């Protein structure tokens, strides 16, 4: 695969590129990319009254782990990802990445928004390259990275297309490529497959899994879809709304890739459905 040949980038501030003995470098890298969210609460002011959106959220994402977050609409999933990404610093509690408090966005933490948020005036290729804006890297390296990531998400042939000329699913894939092109240590995905049809969705789930296995990047993915959460996640975090809080943490404990029809997967799915107040579909359809 073209992707395995991806060039190492000349960035100095990354633990994995310091000249330490391999074992220490690995250990450091592991430490350096652990995400800790500790007792995080967040409220928005609506009509000058505080509306609590997140309450006492704690979680740990180990390097290379795939965490999925499920929860009803409006329970604060996007808000949580924005906090981790550093786009919103107004919260209580602690968010540490590699042991250091998150104080703003960083290229080490990538985010794929719920809507693709590509720049409508840039081509797919230019959109992906726009992620390099704050890094002094040479054009040749840039071009190579963009090309590799376009291949990674299967958008070959659409390099010169504008976002409005491609389908929603393709735009979302371009957004994933844009988030990955800086090789972040952790990738936050906000319902990246929310806008695609069921068939494409199954396909893209496997693509995401492939990318995750290939890149060894930590992933935190928000989804509405319980099956998706169980199929992809090492750990599934269930949120309850108003205010958003963690009601259950499930360690899936199965190796990846998995079989969708695995009885253990189905059992976990049922267990999570039971967490929601209206488990009607599963109770009545059997």
């Amino acid at each position: 695969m073209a992707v395995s040949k991806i060039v190492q980038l000349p960035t100095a501030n990354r633990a994995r590129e310091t000249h330490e003995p391999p074992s220490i470098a690995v250990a450091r890298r592991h430490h350096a990319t652990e995400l800790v969210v500790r007792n995080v609460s967040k409220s928005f002011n609506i009509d000058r009254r505080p509306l609590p959106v997140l309450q006492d959220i704690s979680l740990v994402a180990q390097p290379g782990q795939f965490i999925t977050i499920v929860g009803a609409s409006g329970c604060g999933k996007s808000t949580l990802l924005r906090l981790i990404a550093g786009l919103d610093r107004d919260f209580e509690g602690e968010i540490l990445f590699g042991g250091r408090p998150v104080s703003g966005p960083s290229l080490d933490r990538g985010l794929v928004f719920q809507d693709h948020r590509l720049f409508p005036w840039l081509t797919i290729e230019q959109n992906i390259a726009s992620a390099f804006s704050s890094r002094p890297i040479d054009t040749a390296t840039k071009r190579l990275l963009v090309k590799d990531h376009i291949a990674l998400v299967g958008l070959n042939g659409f390099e010169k297309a504008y976002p409005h000329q491609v389908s929603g699913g393709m735009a979302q894939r371009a957004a994933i490529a844009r988030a990955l092109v800086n090789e972040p240590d952790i990738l936050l995905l906000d319902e990246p497959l929310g806008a695609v049809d069921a068939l494409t969705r199954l396909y893209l789930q496997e693509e995401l899994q492939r990318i995750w296995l290939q890149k060894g990047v930590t992933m935190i993915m928000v989804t509405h879809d319980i099956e998706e959460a169980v199929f992809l996640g090492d750990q599934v975090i269930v949120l309850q709304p108003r205010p958003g809080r963690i009601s259950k943490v499930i360690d899936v404990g199965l190796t990846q890739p998995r079989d969708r029809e695995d009885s253990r997967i189905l059992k976990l799915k049922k267990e999570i459905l039971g967490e929601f107040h209206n488990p009607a579909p599963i109770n009545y359809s059997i």
Partner: protein
Amino acid sequence: MQLSPAFGWLLKRLPSLLSPFILIGVWELVAQTHLFAANILIPPQQVFRTFLDLLADGELIDNIKASGARVLSGFAIGAGAGLIAGMAMGLYPALERYFGLLFTVIRQVPFIAWAPLLIVAFGIGETFKIIIIANAAFFPVALSTLDGVRNVPRHLKDVAALFRFDRLALMRSLVLPAALPSILTGVRLALSRSWMIVVAAELFAASSGIGHMMDWGRQMFQIDVVMVGVVVTGVVGFILDQMLRQVEAHFSSWKLPSR
């Protein structure tokens, strides 16, 4: 087969093309009744003949050129300054807090109302005309630029923050393209205003230009020359507007996601 797109174009614009002809028809009919003296209400054919005469001896073209040159320099100065002012206020809200009020008050003064003051200050030479045009071009561009910069979609600003865009990338990849459609609308408005104001200013004081030609026609009681001036002013303004509409449509062709 080859004609059909052109034909379609014509068909779509037929109603708007029809109205000038109806106007000319009514004009002709009223002239026929001799209700007004023939040297006051000039019949259309005579205006057309005068137009051809003025065209043939080069006078009309020279005057259009003279007016055009003034518009060009005044517009360039005014629109350029407007672009800078609008950008600055959009990017640094503090500036708008300081100058916003002044800006709004000055904007309320009709641009021709500056003429007497400017004539006192600069005389009736070229400087006066260029300043009054620049002033007319400044506000539409400044306002639309400010508006465009202020309304850069927030969800795209998030993207810029996420990837830590530096100033240059922020301007080039986000602010300018997001504000461009709005800026172009302002530029179009500014250009048609500049054209109007140059003709008006030349009526006051000039030795060349369309406005001067009209003023001279009035003094010589050659109303047909005045009429030619009116029609030419309208047609040139229309052409400028249409040209910029094309540019505007071209640059708005990407679909900005709403929100």
